[in-house]
């Protein structure tokens, strides 16, 4: 094994500095006393306390959280089914189209997805608002869930499923007793990913929204256009905190489940041996 050369260390450190510095600066200036976000004038948490009195912002946050919870949950179910269909059924009619529809939304420019969904809702006469945003979010986030779950299914030892089937379990029972517990960490991280994507989305929400449904990114965007303020830095810091906490918890849970599973597997092998 060659050593980690100075060049490699430098590129990783510089790269991570580039990735994190803007976020760190944003967080620091959310605690700035002054209204200017570029000149430090002392520590203060006043911008955070002001947020609590901004009713429009709190309403938007509540809409965003409800959309996120609902769409992430539905997207996880649909995305997991899509991943199963892609991995377990190597041939069925229209499979090429299906896999195309799963991968295309990952790279599709958001303006196109947003416009096309809006025109669908208008064409079928669906009232725009909370539900249309939720349906739109389910559609684009389910594909991300599908990819995450699919990669776990591909590295899955199918012989345990076959064993369960040989022992007389129905496919449905096998799925819930064997497959789901094994892929659960991936399904969980798929849910977290779908939730954060929904929390973040500006473009698709703006196209598919209607009167009375304003999400937090839409609110932030309209304020950002008016200029940079420490109040926006404060909201952003809270959102970054929530997401970072979510990701850290998700990775700890995943890690723990993996360790547990490996221990179980070793115990099972030892018992057989």
């Amino acid at each position, binding site marked *: 094994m*060659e050593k*980690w*050369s100075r*060049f*490699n*260390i*430098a*590129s990783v450190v510089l*790269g*991570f500095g*580039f*990735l994190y510095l*803007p*976020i760190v*600066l*944003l967080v620091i*200036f959310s605690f700035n006393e002054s209204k200017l976000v*570029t000149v430090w004038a002392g520590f203060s948490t006043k911008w955070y306390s002001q947020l609590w009195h901004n009713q429009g912002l709190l309403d938007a946050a509540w809409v965003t959280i409800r959309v996120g919870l609902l769409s992430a949950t539905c997207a996880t179910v*649909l995305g997991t*089914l899509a991943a199963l*269909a892609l991995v*377990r059924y190597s041939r*069925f009619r*229209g499979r090429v189209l*299906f896999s195309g*529809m799963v*991968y295309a*939304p990952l*790279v*599709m*420019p*958001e*303006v*196109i997805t947003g*416009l*096309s969904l809006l*025109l*669908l809702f208008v064409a079928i006469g669906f009232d725009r608002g909370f539900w249309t945003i939720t349906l*739109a979010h*389910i*559609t684009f986030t389910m594909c991300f869930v*599908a990819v995450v779950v699919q*990669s776990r299914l*591909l590295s899955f030892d199918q012989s345990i499923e076959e064993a369960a089937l040989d022992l007389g379990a*129905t*496919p*449905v029972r096998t799925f819930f007793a064997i497959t789901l517990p094994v892929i659960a960490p991936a399904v969980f991280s798929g849910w977290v*990913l779908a939730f*954060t994507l929904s929390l*973040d989305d500006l*473009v698709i929400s703006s196209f598919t929204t209607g009167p009375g449904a304003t999400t937090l990114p839409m609110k*932030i*965007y309209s304020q950002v*256009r008016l200029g*940079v303020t420490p109040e926006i830095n404060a909201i*952003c810091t809270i*959102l970054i905190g929530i*997401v970072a906490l979510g*990701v850290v918890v998700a*990775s700890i849970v995943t890690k723990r489940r993996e360790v547990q599973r490996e221990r179980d597997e070793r115990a099972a092998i030892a018992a057989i041996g």
Partner: protein
Amino acid sequence: MAKLSSALASRLVIIVPYAWLLFFFLIPFFIVLRISLSQTTVAMPPYTPVFDLAGGLAGILDKVREFSVDNYVWLTEDALYFNAYVSSLVIASISTILTLLIGYPIAYGMAKAPPAIRPTLLMMVILPFWTSFLIRVYAWIAILKPEGLLNQFLIAIGVIDQPLIILNTNSAIYIGIVYSYLPFMVLPIYSALEKMDHSLIEAAQDLGCTPIRAFWRVTFPLSLPGVVAGCLLVFIPAVGEFVIPDLLGGSETLMIGKTLWSEFNSNRDWPVSSAVAIILLMILVVPIVYFQNVQAKADSEGR
């Protein structure tokens, strides 16, 4: 009975997500196509009706006869749209190359890191991707402004004495795209490099290759699938990017995502914005299909 329900269950596994994507992903594109062929009206919705099934087959045929390509003609006549497409492609290509040049050394350094810290590094690359896109773009405004942090810093260390104008120029867009999409480039390259068999490099060096030659002859070709996937993951969404040119770019920056947005939201011209979307889709269909093939191939290799 149990067998029947199992067969039904396995059907549903395919049918439910399939039907969902057909209805919410594929069919909407046909609606966009249809509306791009209709006339603008001052009504709500602001286009002539899509289909009126009450008229029966004859009614539908009448509608088809009413299809007009006026919106497309309009797009070709107005140089604004053509320039916006071209400049989007140019900006996306330059940004993709810059992202590759910055992302490759990072991915390479990560793949060479001691195995014990690799999962942490991986997690640190993924983390910014989970933080809001809008927030990350917003963070750059305070840095790039004329009186912003970057200029303050450069003036303080004496590199410049007049603030650089970066915000609201194309340079700001490049910075924004490279910054926002960097994890998309690093991750596939890292996973390609990490899987690589290190003994190949040793073999090349034993046979007399210099380290740099060994890199270009062995390492780089083996990481190519990751490079291709990373470039596509950056290029395709960047062409239609809206938030970055809107917040960091200037008024003279033309990008098609922004054009579509303002056509739709400010001018309320739905048929023209549909035509803009259809042409954008036609431009992107080749890279998108290529991306799907790369993905499908990666899946069948993982099997």
